[in-house]
C-alpha cells in the first residue's frame, strides 16, 4: 500500500508521541540512577556528573542481591509450572469435549479477574498457619493461581488454530498422543507458548502486593518489595539513587526475555500446513 507524504508524517508524529509517552519515565529513571548524589535533584535529563555509585551500592548490599535471586527463582519457577500445566490444560480445553468444559474456562477467567487485595488477608493467615509465610513457595503458589488462567486462555487460542489433521496425521504416522503433542503440537504452538511465558514471567516479576504482604525477611522477599525497604545513607537522605539503579537492574531481565522470545513469536508459522 502506498502512503502519501501527509499520511507518513501523521503516522510518524503519532508513533513518536506514543513511544515518548512510554519511554520518558524509563529514561528518567535511567538518568537518575546514573547521577551523582549531589546532582540528584537538579531536574536535568542528562546527568551533569556521571556516576556508577548507585549501582555499586545496591550490589554491595545483601538486601538487593537476595531479593534479585528470589525474584528470578520465583518468576522462573512460576513460569515453568504455569506453561507445563497451562499447555496441557489448554490443549484439553481446545481439543476435548468433556462435561463442564465451559464452566471450567469461565471459572479460570473469573479467578484471574479476582481482586488481589481481597485475597491478601486470608492468604496471609493461611500461610502463617501452614508455614508458607515468608517462603518462595508461598509466593509461587498464589502467582500460579493468577497466571494459570492467563496462560490457559492464551494457549488454548493458539491450540485451536492448529489443524486437527496434523495431530491425527502424527498418530497415523506412529506417534503416541504424547509424542504427537510434543513433536507436532508444541512446536507449532511455540509462538503461543512464548507469548504466555513472557506474560506470566512479567506478571510474577513485577507483582508487589502479595510480595510485600507475604514476606518479612530476605528469605523470600522479591525485588519490588525489597525496593520499598531501601534506606538512604542516614535517616535524612532519600534512597532515590539506589531505587532508580535497582529499578533499572530489574528491568534488564524483562528486556532480555522479550528480545529473545520476540524472535520466536513469528506469525505465520503454521502457513503451509494445510492447503493454503
Amino acid at each position, binding site marked *: 500500500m502506498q502512503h502519501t507524504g501527509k499520511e507518513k508524517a501523521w503516522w510518524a508524529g503519532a508513533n513518536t508521541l506514543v513511544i515518548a509517552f512510554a519511554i520518558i519515565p524509563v529514561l528518567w529513571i535511567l538518568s537518575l540512577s546514573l547521577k551523582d548524589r549531589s546532582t540528584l535533584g537538579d531536574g536535568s535529563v542528562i546527568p551533569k556528573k556521571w556516576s556508577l555509585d548507585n549501582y555499586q551500592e545496591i550490589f554491595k548490599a545483601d538486601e538487593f542481591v537476595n531479593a534479585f535471586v528470589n525474584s528470578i527463582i520465583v518468576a522462573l519457577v512460576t513460569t515453568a509450572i504455569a506453561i507445563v500445566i497451562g499447555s496441557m490444560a489448554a490443549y484439553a480445553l481446545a481439543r476435548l469435549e468433556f462435561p463442564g468444559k465451559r464452566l471450567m474456562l469461565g471459572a479460570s477467567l473469573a479467578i484471574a479477574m479476582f481482586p488481589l487485595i481481597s485475597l491478601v488477608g486470608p492468604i496471609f493467615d493461611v500461610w502463617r498457619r501452614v508455614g508458607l509465610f515468608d517462603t518462595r513457595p508461598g509466593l509461587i503458589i498464589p502467582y500460579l493461581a493468577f497466571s494459570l488462567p492467563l496462560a490457559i486462555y492464551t494457549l488454548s487460542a493458539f491450540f485451536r488454530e492448529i489443524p486437527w*489433521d496434523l495431530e*491425527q*496425521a502424527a498418530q497415523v504416522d506412529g506417534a503416541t498422543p504424547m509424542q504427537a503433542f510434543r513433536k507436532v503440537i508444541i512446536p507449532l504452538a511455540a509462538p503461543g507458548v512464548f507469548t504466555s511465558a513472557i506474560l506470566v514471567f512479567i506478571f510474577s516479576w513485577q507483582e508487589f502486593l502479595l510480595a510485600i504482604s507475604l514476606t518479612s525477611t530476605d528469605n523470600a522477599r522479591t525485588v519490588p518489595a525489597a525496593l520499598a525497604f531501601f534506606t538512604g545513607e542516614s535517616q535524612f537522605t532519600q534512597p532515590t539513587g539506589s531505587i532508580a539503579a535497582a529499578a533499572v537492574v530489574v528491568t534488564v531481565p524483562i528486556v532480555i526475555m522479550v528480545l529473545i522470545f520476540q524472535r520466536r513469536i513469528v506469525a505465520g508459522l503454521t502457513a503451509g500446513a494445510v492447503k493454503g
Partner: protein
Amino acid sequence: MAEIQFDHVTKRYGDGFEAVKDMNLEIADGEFLILVGPSGCGKSTALRMVAGLEDITDGELRIGGEVVNEKAPKDRDIAMVFQSYALYPHMTVRENMAFPLKLAGVDKGEADRRVTEAAKVLDLEQHLDRKPANLSGGQRQRVAMGRAIVRDPKAFLMDEPLSNLDAKLRVQMRAEVSRLQTSLGTTTVYVTHDQTEAMTLGDRVAVMRAGILQQVDTPKVLYERPANLFVAGFIGSPSMNFFTGHVEGDRLRLPFGDVPLADHHRKALEQEGLRGDIIVGMRPEHFEDAALIGDQESQGVTFDAPIEVTESMGSEIYAYFSYEGGEVASEELQELAADAGAADLPSSGGSQAVARLNPESDVCHGQTTRLWVDASRMHLFHPQDGHALRADGDGAPAAPSGRFAREHEREAQEREPEERPAM
C-alpha cells in the same frame, strides 16, 4: 500388505446419528478400492475407522486377519493421506517424510535411503530441504504421498487426496496415484465424492449413501448394471435420465412415446409381478439423432424432442430436451438427486432430460429434433424401493445388506399398503 474386512461395522455418534450402518466389505490384499458417495454418506467415517481415528460402535474391523477395533492408530501400521495433506509445517520435506520412520525407530542411514528413494519416485528430490509453505499444491500433495509410502505400511488410506488440486493437476495426479498403487501393490482404500475419480482409479468401487453400502463392484458393472436408482443416478456423467413408465401388456408407455419391451425386461417384470407404473432409466448415450441411426431404428423409438440447450464438446454433443408428463415425482428420487448434488443440474428438474449425440448431428437449441432412443438398453427400477429390475434377479435387493431395500419397503407399506404389489 494385508486385506481389510468390515464385519457388520456400525458407527453411532453420541446423539444417536448413525454415520455407518452395518457395513460389510472385504478388501483383498493389494486391491485398490474406492469408497464413493455424496458428502455426508459416511465414506470418510468408514475410512477413519480403518485408520483408528474414529471408534467403532459395533461390529469388527480386521486388518490382515487381526481385529483392530481397540488398537491405537499407531499400532495399526497403516498410512493415510489427508485431504488437507496435513504436512508438518515446522519440518522440511525430508523431515516430514522421515517422521514416521523416526517414530518407528528406523536407523538414520536406512531412513535417509528410503526417503531419497521415495523422493525420486515422486520427483521431489530437489525440494527435500524446503518447508511445506514454499511448495505448490501439487508438490505438497506429493509430499503427503511420500510420507505414506516411505514406511511400506499394510495399507494406504486416502481421504479425497486430490480434491484440493485444480482440474488439470488432478487428472495428472490421478494417473500418478494409479501408477504408484500398481507398482507398490499395497492395499489401498481411497475416498472420493467424485464419481469420475472412482470410475477411473479403482479395481472395485463401493458406493455409499446415508451410511449404507449400496453396491460394490468393478466400475464397469456399476455403470452397466446398477443395483438401484441411487447407484444408477450417481455413477455416470451426465447422469442417467429417469422417467415414469407405464407397463401395458408388451409395451411400455413413456412420456415421449411407446416402446416395445425387450425380452429381458418383460421377464424381469414378470418375476417381480409388476404392472402399471415403473421407473425407467436411460443413459444419455443411448439417445441418438434419429437421422444418424441407420438400421437400428426398430430396437427403439423415435420422437420429436424440443431441444432447450446444447453443449458441444467437440467429440460429442449434449442436448437437453424437455418432455411433458412422466416426471419421476418419487420423493426418494428427488432426495437422491439432491444427495448426488444433481439438484442443481437442469436435467434433474424432472421434465428435462439429456442426450449424448454424435457430433455430426445438426441439433440446435430452440428447435425440435427427431431423437431416437435404444429401448433395449434402458434400466427398469421398482417404483417403491428403487431396486433394479432384472431377469436374472441380481438387481435386488438394493444394498448388499438388504437394508436399503427393506427400509424403503417398510416406508412404502406404511404409506400405501393396499397398493403394494405382491413380490
